[in-house]
């Protein structure tokens, strides 16, 4: 009787262990996913291919720029978020083309695709020893502005390659502590790096 009970207990334990292993074994996607490199605003974050240092974040209700000499205005139902980053290639030339704004609740905003032919659009081509400024523009929901993280990589969904995850912790504030949001931001004037 006792022996039989022990066998049963052993069986149940084995089943539990197997179930736990089945549920928690990492999937292919996790095993080959991006390798995060974390950092904060203002400090350089070193990934395998490039270094990135987020200089500033700006918010605006609409953005304007010049396309082929004529002005273009882009409104949004949310908020424009403009992140300026200093980028530097490490050992070889690289183009940094993928950025996403990850909100505090995990919502993932890809870069906007609404700024055709605006100056300073990614991908930002980098060469070793020649650091330059790059700008990434997102359209976000206003409640996703605080506590966000910038994800930067060479291409979409990097596999077995590093991805910079930079906490955007120094946001522009009004004197009363609320978020500073410009009514209009001119991307042509604010384009950093190249003319």
């Amino acid at each position, binding site marked *: 009787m006792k022996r039989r009970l022990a066998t049963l207990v052993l069986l149940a334990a084995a089943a539990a262990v197997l179930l736990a292993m089945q549920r928690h074994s990492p*999937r*292919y*996607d*996790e095993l080959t996913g991006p390798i995060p490199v974390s950092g904060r605003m203002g400090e350089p974050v070193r990934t395998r291919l490039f270094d990135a240092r987020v200089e500033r974040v700006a918010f605006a209700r609409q953005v304007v720029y010049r396309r082929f000499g004529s002005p273009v205005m*882009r*409104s*949004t*139902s*949310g908020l424009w978020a403009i992140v300026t980053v200093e980028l530097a290639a490490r050992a070889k030339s690289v183009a940094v083309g993928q950025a*996403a704004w990850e909100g505090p609740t*995990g*919502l*993932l*905003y*890809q870069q*906007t*695709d*609404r700024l*055709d032919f605006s100056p300073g659009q990614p991908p930002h081509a980098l060469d070793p020893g020649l650091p330059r400024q790059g700008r990434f523009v997102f*359209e*976000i*929901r206003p409640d*996703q502005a605080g506590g966000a993280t910038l994800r930067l990589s060479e291409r979409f969904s990097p596999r077995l390659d590093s991805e910079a995850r930079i906490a955007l912790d120094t946001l522009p504030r009004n004197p009363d502590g609320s978020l500073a949001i410009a009514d209009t931001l001119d991307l042509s004037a604010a384009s950093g790096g190249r003319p």
Partner: protein
Amino acid sequence: MRPAFGKVKTRLLAGIGSILAACSAAVYGLYVKVSPPPPLARYEAGSPIEAGQWQVVPRRAWVSRDKVYGVSPGPGQQMLVVEVDLGNRTRASSSDYADVLRPHAVPGLAPGAPTVAQTRDPRLSPLLHPGLAERVAYIWVMADSAAPPATLTADVVAKTYKPRDNLYGVPGWYNPAVVGRLALPLGASFAPGGADAARAP
């Protein structure tokens, strides 16, 4: 005597059991075949529809021979335009909405995926971001000679969320299925973007 009887009893029981199992499968199959599918939800202009990844609010539909939101009909063509508000209900930016509306019983409709244009600034296949609803126009090409019906009916198609797929273990949206039917009066013509009383939420 007893062992033989036991054998017979066992065989009898096994036979009855397997017959029952086979019958249950047949009865279930018959039930699925015979029982009518649940009635499709009906939607009209202004009714919010939860279609998997997308929150869809149909606004209006019309047939156009002129350029609409940057899309022009080719020679011998007219365009069926359906304006909807699309809200992304998922976690990440996406443009996987081409299959959400499937018009049917429209004479002369060319098969194939529609062109989807954002109305805020005419942009094709815009990326739509979580929680930021945008008005878009679905545009199908029709033969110029076809007479459009008075009312457009279209199936609303939704995909189902799967926390991980079987191959890569990534979350995703699969298995498109019709979740409702939309009926919109087909106006003769609208000025794109103008005279838009339904814009207010």
